[in-house]
């Protein structure tokens, strides 16, 4: 088979959050210009596809949208997720070896429960692809490497208790940047301990230290995990010109990163230096995926030696890589017993801030600490949405590898919650059956979507 790279370019030129919002329609305009002008779409190695449209069911495999999918998800979101799904299909069908979904809006801040827009994201494009791949093709082990300057907190949230999905994120330290999470001690829940790896980097990291992290941590961890499919959450806001981040990565640095990761699928996330970074970074990544020479793709103002890394930054990164290597090695020996003792559930409270509409969600997340399976997750979520007002919901998610006992328990929990007057909505997501049920207290109605 010839090595081909698929591209879905979906800039949603007719959609934006607001006129001057950083995530706006101009974001991919210059990327389009650069890619068109370079003529890369005429290369035999690159195939362009149209996006498909993710269905409410595709989205319900991942998210509990409150109250419903249609209340939270616009056509633009469905197409961005659908674009990534289309490429994943072509990759599995071996029409292409890898693909790049240059889409907007982005998705990696969208968590499992969706009350609104977070960090410009409403639904998690990568997670929609992952659930699609598992359900449709039976793929078991998947890795996501998040290379956005912001912590991929949404993706982490969705897969925190999933041992089959490895989530690795490097990002600017949460003490200095939105969303303020992604520290080295966030390593996954008790049934999935060690399947989340966070690498918080100090501001001012250049290509040099980044590649030190890639070579000494990310690649060995991937090698160890042996995923069947690798997704790159490809945020371009680590670029040295990005207005939101404080990193010093170049287009060449990104392209080399892509070459080393060899992701099956890259999905565009952030990147807000729309003139100085995106046209060049996106082009370089596309060429790297296609195995073409990208060495000539440079930013107009770039000069070798332009970005100098502070020696303290270099040392800090080295030390952190060291300690994370140790953590990673040790994580394999740590058992559920050690983490939870005899507790039936592992639970953690969470506060989630929706920065686009300024409101907070309070959550209590519980995982059944089963020894036979990854367990099921129950989320008790409570928010005051601007549109909906106060709303408390209970959401239950059954992992696709859940044991019979856990499935029965989860269904019981669902039936119980239906009787509980505190919940306006109760949701059940049964991945073993690919069923998604919504119960609405107001009129006692219940409806179901199936694949």
């Amino acid at each position, binding site marked *: 088979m010839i090595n081909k790279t698929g591209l*879905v*370019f*979906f*800039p*949603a*030129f*007719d*959609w934006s959050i607001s*006129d*001057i919002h*950083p995530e*706006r*329609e*101009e974001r991919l*305009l*210059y990327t*389009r*210009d*650069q890619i*068109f*002008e*370079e*003529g*890369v779409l*005429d290369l035999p190695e690159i195939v*362009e*596809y*149209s*996006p498909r*449209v993710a269905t409410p069911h595709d989205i319900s495999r991942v998210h509990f949208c409150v109250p419903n999918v249609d209340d939270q998800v616009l*056509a*633009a979101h469905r*197409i961005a997720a659908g674009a990534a799904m289309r490429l994943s299909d072509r990759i599995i069908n071996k029409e292409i070896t890898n693909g790049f979904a240059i889409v907007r809006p982005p998705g990696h801040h969208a968590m499992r429960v969706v009350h609104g827009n977070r960090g410009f994201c409403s639904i998690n494009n990568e997670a929609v692809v992952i659930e699609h791949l598992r359900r449709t093709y039976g793929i078991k082990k998947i890795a996501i490497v998040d290379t956005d300057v912001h912590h991929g907190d949404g993706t982490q949230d969705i897969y925190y208790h999933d041992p089959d999905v490895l989530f690795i994120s490097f990002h600017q330290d949460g003490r200095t940047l939105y969303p303020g999470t992604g520290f080295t001690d966030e390593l996954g829940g008790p049934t999935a301990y060690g399947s989340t790896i966070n690498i918080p980097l100090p501001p001012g990291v250049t290509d040099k230290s980044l590649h030190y992290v890639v070579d000494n941590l990310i690649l060995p961890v991937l090698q160890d995990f042996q995923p069947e499919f690798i997704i790159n959450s490809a945020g371009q806001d680590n670029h040295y010109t990005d207005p939101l981040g404080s990193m010093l990565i170049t287009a060449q640095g990104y392209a080399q990163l892509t070459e080393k990761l060899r992701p099956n699928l890259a999905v565009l996330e952030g990147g807000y230096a729309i*003139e100085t970074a995106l*046209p060049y970074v996106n*082009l370089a990544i596309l*060429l790297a995926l296609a195995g*073409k*020479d*990208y*060495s*000539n*793709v*440079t930013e*107009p103002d770039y000069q070798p030696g332009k970005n100098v890394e502070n020696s303290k930054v270099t040392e800090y990164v080295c030390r952190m890589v060291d300690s994370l290597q140790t953590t990673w090695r040790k994580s394999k020996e740590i058992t559920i017993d050690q983490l939870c003792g005899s507790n039936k559930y592992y639970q953690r409270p969470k506060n989630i801030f929706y920065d686009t509409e300024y409101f907070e969600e309070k959550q209590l997340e519980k995982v059944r600490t089963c020894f036979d399976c990854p367990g099921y997750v129950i989320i008790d979520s409570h928010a005051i949405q601007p549109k909906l007002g106060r709303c408390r919901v209970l959401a239950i998610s059954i992992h696709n590898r859940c044991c019979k006992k856990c499935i029965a328990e989860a269904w019981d929990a669902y039936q119980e919650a239906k009787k509980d007057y505190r919940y306006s909505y109760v949701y059940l997501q049964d991945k073993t059956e690919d069923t998604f049920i919504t119960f609405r207290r107001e009129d006692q109605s219940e409806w179901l979507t199936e694949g």
Partner: protein
Amino acid sequence: MYIGIDVGGTSTDAVLLSNGRVQATAKVYNTPNNLLSDLVQALDTLMKGVTADEIERVVLSTTVITNLIAERKNDPVGLLLMPGPGCKLQLYKKPNVHLLSGTIDYKGREITPVVEEEIIAAIDDFDSKGIDKVAIVGKFSPRNNRHELQVADIVTKLKPNWQVEMGHRDGGKLNFPRRVATTLFTCATKEKYQSFVYSVQQALRQRHINAQVFILKADGGTMPLESSIQSPVETIFSGPAASTLGAQALTPAGETSLVIDIGGTTTDLALILSGQPLLSSKGVMLDDQFTQVRALAVKSVPVGGDSIVEAVGKELIIYSERMGKPYCLGGPLPTPTDALNVMGLTKLGDIDKSWAAMEVLSQQTQRSPVEVARNIIDLFVDTVVTEIENMYLEWEQEPAYRIWEVMQSRKMRTKNVVGVGGGAMGFVPQIAIKIGGIPIISPYATAANAIGAAVAKPTMQVTLRADTEQKVYSIEEYGYQGKIEATPFGRDQALNLAKKWLLDRAAAIDIGDQIQEIEVTRQDVFNIVRDMQTTGRIYDVCVQTVRGIQWHVDAGGRLI
């Protein structure tokens, strides 16, 4: 009355139309290097009993340029390229190519200037090789042509007699490699194309025809013969466009049809959606390079009536080559045309010879001649049907960059299956049955090309991009770049400016009276934001004359 003339590789076909009826047709087999006499002969056949002043319009379609390039008879050209940073393409590793300094970005801002010494060195090199035609192309020159103009200036100063072409004039769309190819081919064919135009003008003058003369473009539009001299590559592949328009003319207005043009070596597929031929999203490919020439979406299947059929073991195989005429017309080998003759679907040439051809295959495959003929036709039909299905899928896969484009479903299959070309009568009904459509074959199916040329309307398009932050605008089709004068400059001003350009240009080439309606095909606005402030807007506007054909010929007459 309208005249359509299709100057093909082997013959010149012509048709005379009057009020939507075919008055006369002519077919003249070409004599080498004597286009003038072929044209005059065709005109004389058409115009029996018709006076020259009754002719209102003449439209030609031609493969002259396509053939020049295919046979590599075009003139050598020196390339001066300013590729800047970006992809490294194989294209640049050729002799007669000089890479120059000078960089412009996507907004048209200069990043690095041109260097005069490099240009002078390149000119000396071309001079020593006897090259006197130069194509100058810079990356993002449609956004800012300054570098191209500077280089051209230096070349012209040193070599006033050289032919110089610039990328922003010959290919205003963003796509540097395609623009390079388009400019190169323009440069390489201009001189020879001029002599073609001269022959046509001579022939018409000899027969005292003073009508407006147009040439068909690959996108199914027409341009005045006179102004086509500036852009001869626009005339490439007008053959498939002519046959598609012809098919459109032979079907009722506004309908959706699949067009199957079965020729000797290839079968061309095209789509007409609600009365509009579908345009291809890719530029025409020439000599293995994409150009910026817009074309109708035509898919070529490499089998035709004259393809050769052979037995390999007991299997029958249709090869994509053509070794000459079908066996029934004195050719060397059995062909699908012979199979049609044996099945009684056509009566072409010597039917006994067709039987003899099947007989040979029959012995090799141990099947009866009729079975062999049946198998060949099935094979042919299956090949075409598979490609039709692929074409639909490709069409559904066309990229879409806006939400509304994605949300409108594209899945559809056509009912009308319009057959044109020599093999249409034999094959198209069977293809139609297989895909569940209704076959439509006009008695003029074999003259569809010339009819298509005759009915083609002049069409024009103007694509405007205005950047209010930089206060500049450009017109893609004409390589024009100018300052935005109007304040305020908003959506309406952008649209009006584009329309004004369209009307001015139409008037300049004397077709202003033929433009009744202007269609807006794209209208995008982008806010340019810096530091959370809107500092300007980019307007991306495309307007065109309503595409279409002058007449529907004989449309009521559905056959079969």
